[in-house]
């Protein structure tokens, strides 16, 4: 903690908040898993560790299949009755899953430099926060004249 404070207040502030200098400092080392293990464990490692060595066409097809299945599930849920208040949260969750799938794997954010994630995520966070607050206060604060 004291060290953190020192880094923060030190005149030469080149500490933990500093942006990486080059891709060689990439927090996601490109070849982190050598060949080995089953295809499934390779894919799991690609997803969880962001290694790129196995993100080939097969992986993209798999992600595409996954997205298609979720879409089918969404359309199927549309016809299911009796979900009640769960319908909207479930659908929002599923679309968030698809959203993350495309952004992380098709747009390569999972494999890419973290900087791009920071740039995109910061605007997503600001956007989601302010528009949620807007919806919230219009829902509970103010009733438009009908």
């Amino acid at each position: 903690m004291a060290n953190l404070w020192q880094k923060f207040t030190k005149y030469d502030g080149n500490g933990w908040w500093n942006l990486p200098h080059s891709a060689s400092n990439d927090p996601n080392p490109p070849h982190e898993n050598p060949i080995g293990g089953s295809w499934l464990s390779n894919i799991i490692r690609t997803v969880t560790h962001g290694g790129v060595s196995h993100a080939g066409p097969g992986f993209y097809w798999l992600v595409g299949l996954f997205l298609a299945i979720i879409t089918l599930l969404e359309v199927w849920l549309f016809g299911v009755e009796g979900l009640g208040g769960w319908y909207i949260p479930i659908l929002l969750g599923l679309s968030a899953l698809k959203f993350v799938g495309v952004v992380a794997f098709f747009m390569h954010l999972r494999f890419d430099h973290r900087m791009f994630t920071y740039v995109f995520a910061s605007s997503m966070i600001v956007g989601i926060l302010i528009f949620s607050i807007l919806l919230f206060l219009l829902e509970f604060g103010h009733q438009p004249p009908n």
Partner: protein
Amino acid sequence: MTTKALTFPRLFPRPKADTGIWSWIGTVDHKRIGTLYGITAFIWFIVGGLEALLIRAQLASAESTLIGPEAFNQLFTMHGTTMVFLVIMPLSAAFFNWLIPLQIGARDVAFPRLNALSFWIFLFGSLIINASFLTGNAPNGGWFGYAPNSGATFNPGLGMTYWVVGLNILGVASIAAGLNFIVTILNMRAPGMGMFKIPIFTWMTLITSVLIVLAMPILAVAGIQLQTDRVYGTHFFNSLGGGDPVMWQHIFWLFGHPEVYILILPAMGIVSEVLPTFARKPLFGYPFVVLAGAAIAFMGWFVWSHHMFTVGLGPAVNTAFAVSTMLIAVPTGVKIFNWLGTLWGGNIRLNTPMLFSISFIAMFTIGGLSGVMHASPPTDSQQQDTYFVVAHFHYVLVGGALLGIFSGIYFWWPKFTGYFLNEKLGIANWALMMIGFNFTFAPMHWLGMDGMPRRIYTYAENMGWEGSNLAASIGGLILGLGILVFIINVFYSRMKKVMAGNDPWDGRTLEWATTSPPPVHDFDEIPQVKYRDDFWFQKYPETISEYYHDEHDQAVPSGAQIDGDDAEANAELPVVTGSADDHGDEHGHGGIHLPDMSYYPFILAFGLAIFGVAFVTDGLVLFAGAPFFIWGLLGWSMEPVND
């Protein structure tokens, strides 16, 4: 890398001229673009100032019939719109353009042609907004254009349509410029310059650019919605069709409050450069100033409803926004105390830039405090739409943003031109502005407390407001006189040319390391950076030990190599040489490779402007703009990427 240009039929060859009008139209040099921004914005500043003087002339006496209500509405709308979008934002952009590459030790911005495009779009957008005067029906719905008053039902003329279209065009320019500066600051820093070694003005530019990039799209959405309501009969803000005028206020202020920080943060950055230079001390608490700026920018998103306390959002909403608004005073206060700490114990030189900067602190604090006053909903319901609010935001925007910008003009003029602005005229300029400014806006505080509403073209004789209003009008004239002295100063100094040399103020940041004015390529050799305020420590290496400590908090011996965090980074710095044909170098960091000039930004912006005109006149005009737009786009994309 593609080394050979793809062939594309060109009507004229790639521009090469160094002088004359074509050299300006085809320019991609950040310094020239900065000059263009500065001159254009200053012309609009004079226009907006004259509008303000007309407003003050009308209000100087009770029941005046000098201008009349119609023209008065147009004047205050255009005054606000001009000052916010056509003056303070582009004046800040002028400083961004001039200084950012110099301060981070780069040869240009990351996307020179995009930079030129931003300027030309800004120029055409500002012309479109002001062209509304020619139709005799200027925008008259206030700079915030509240629905339904700005809708087609209550405002059938073309004025507000010009306003919406013009603002959307300006938004494109701002977003393009904002994206450009984000990438420039992240990607174009000199070797060794970590993010916490960049000058504070560069930090504030980065934060402002992020705000611009995230806030301007919301204005674009508001504009598109109002435009479709006005022209195509949609119902966004039409309660008869199920819409809600309050939504306009929400969307506009979702943009509008970050916009306030877009206006003030660059000026804060300027002041944070001027104070350390003339106090001959490093900025007190640099990381805190940076993080306070970031905190202001982040919290600025969650306070927008304080513009709407009297709308009737309910006590819970009002309380929440009151709290968040008061909280934002904390990081602002941090900055003010950091500036005071910078001055404390400093070896202070009181010259024109310093006077402007110190006045900035005082005036901005007054404006900030009146802001905290109407952060409280009960107080605000008394002050809403009165002159108290007018006093508040003029203290923040004139006493804050504008004084900061003037400070920057006097500070960096020697760097821009090579010669000083006259000091005596400068002090006269400062004194007249300060007297005039306080005479104009201080009385508005008690006028507002006394209940005088904003945006009324006249008032009754027996209200007791005449004396204060007359004082404000006279103050406005004095303020105008101060600006006149500035203009005289510019021409006088240009005639006298008291040469300044490269580093007239004993500066701290990299822009003082190059010549004044800088060469086209900015730096003969890209500087290698080791410290914050690197240029200062190059000049005074004996002071390094005062500020740098090693891991065990021991003072570093003078001139010793700094170890620790950036030892690794230093180790892998490329050796920079001045070889002219370094092909592996895309951005001219090594060999002096400058981007070639291009006409296409101008052509593309011209096409876009005609599209804008189509929205206020006739859809068929789109076909007139399309050739220019497509020509600009194709020509641009066929130019080699490396340039």
